[in-house]
């Protein structure tokens, strides 16, 4: 906890939370604008607006989450690269493995907080727009929790890059690559999309467009928690490898 507190202290004047929040708010704007347009057009999206909203969230999370996580990890890790503080911290009794964990937790807290604000805004918009039917709290919670599980995997990859390479453009390129796969992955067959950790955000759509009697509508789809647990475990493995490798590194 002491090291985690220090990580937040080091971010003073870096505006990391504001940067992360700004990126997620941009996503929120796109999603809500799209939901508004869909509702205005009428049809299925207007009949099932909550389901439509959750689907948009899943799709756009695939685009925004990988890059935003890359930015967060890069900003959090870069403070050490810039001042070459590794030796200083190591000589001040801070274990490198603890530093790795603290940075991971710090990034997760920042993104989880920013995304919690996002989900409140989505729900608030639904209520304000008087969406019909009961608020699907369970589905929203599943969407948020599932996103966090995938975030763990994606962040593990980003932290690995950001800690290993001083030049953060490499980590940001990895983030952009992840964003491409996260967004465009929806167009790939499931078997291809599921190879990549970034492709799982669309698993949280909880609805899919189907044709019934010549009419397009949204059919509910249950979240496959086994897949998400798999991504989470893969993330923990990548995190563990990165942490071990970093702790063994000579300074």
């Amino acid at each position, binding site marked *: 906890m*002491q090291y985690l507190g220090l990580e937040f202290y080091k971010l*003073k004047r870096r505006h990391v939370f504001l940067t992360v929040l700004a990126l997620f708010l941009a996503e929120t704007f796109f999603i809500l604008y799209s939901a508004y347009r869909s509702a205005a057009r009428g049809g299925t999206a207007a009949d099932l607006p909550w389901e439509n909203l959750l689907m948009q969230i899943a799709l756009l999370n695939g685009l925004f989450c990988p890059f935003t996580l890359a930015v967060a990890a890069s900003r959090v890790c870069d*403070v050490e690269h810039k001042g*070459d503080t590794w030796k200083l911290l190591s*000589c*001040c009794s801070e274990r490198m493995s603890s530093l790795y964990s603290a940075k991971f937790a710090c990034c997760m807290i920042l993104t989880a907080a920013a995304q919690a604000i996002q989900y409140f805004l989505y729900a608030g918009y639904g209520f304000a727009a008087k969406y019909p039917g009961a608020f699907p709290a369970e589905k929203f919670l599943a969407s948020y929790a599932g996103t966090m599980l995938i975030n763990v995997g994606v962040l593990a990859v980003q932290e690995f890059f950001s800690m290993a390479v001083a030049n953060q453009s490499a980590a940001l390129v990895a983030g952009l690559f992840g964003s491409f796969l996260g967004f465009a992955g929806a167009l790939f067959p499931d078997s291809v999309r599921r190879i990549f950790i970034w492709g799982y955000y669309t698993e949280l759509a909880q609805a899919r467009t189907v044709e019934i009697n010549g009419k397009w509508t949204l059919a509910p789809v249950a979240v496959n928690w086994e897949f998400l647990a798999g991504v989470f475990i893969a993330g923990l493995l990548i995190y563990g490898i990165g942490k071990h490798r970093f702790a063994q590194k*000579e*300074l």
Partner: protein
Amino acid sequence: MEKAIATKGLSKEYSGVFRVKDLDLQIRQGEVYGFLGPNGAGKSTTMKMILGLVRPTRGSVELFGQRLTEKSRIDILRQTGSLIESPAYYGHLTGMENMRIIQKLMDLPEKNIRKALSIVRLDNQRNKKVKYYSLGMKQRLGIAMALARFPKLLVLDEPTNGLDPAGIEEIRELICSLPAQYGMTVMISSHILSEIDRMATAAGIINKGELVFQGSMEELRAKSSHSIVMRVRSREKAAGLLSDYSPKMTPEGELAFEHVSDDAVARINSRLVENGIPVFRIEERRKSLEEIFLDLTGKAAAL
């Protein structure tokens, strides 16, 4: 007296080449130990091994009688402060905020960080962001961070780099005062002999990863024994005549005699004159510390 640092056979190999080889350092408590060597001699690597930042290929390090291992490292380092290579800092934070990080990491009282900043004369600049500090100020901040814990052992790798002459003098005075004022042992590296000469009570000289001298500064200075140099006609004939004094031929065409008394010089002169060999000049030469350093490290080594 208990050793502050003792290494045994300390070696580090990179890509099949030993950067440090079989180093047996002995640094006593309360000493200011100057660690000298040309650039690339292995000083920083040695210091990193002493602090556990780099794992030795072989050999061991003991600090205050405790063997440095992965497990014991954190406990042992609680007694040390260090500045390795360049000063480390968070540029977007102020000097005081940088010190706060050290305070929180090491769980230090407020007075320690204020005192450390005051010692390096940064208290007036403590609220300025470090990225706006000059190199010398960053160096001072690095020293303040190393001092914050008022450790038993201070390891400083070329701490006067980037300082102006006045700053160098201040740091020199500070380092000299640490053993008496705070009971610290200081290990300080440099490639500038005169700097070490004015600060250290003992020295180790490393060259190409090997220790070529270790001892007190008096022992090092004792190596600067004088020699008598004579310029004579027929140097070879004179050398034969004085073979019992083991003269050496200098590249400048002179005869050099080492460890000879004044009486012996008089006798040598008389013998030459009596044998019809004119003596043009007799002079005493003393090796400077720089010459000793160059002798020990090889003349080709860059200072």
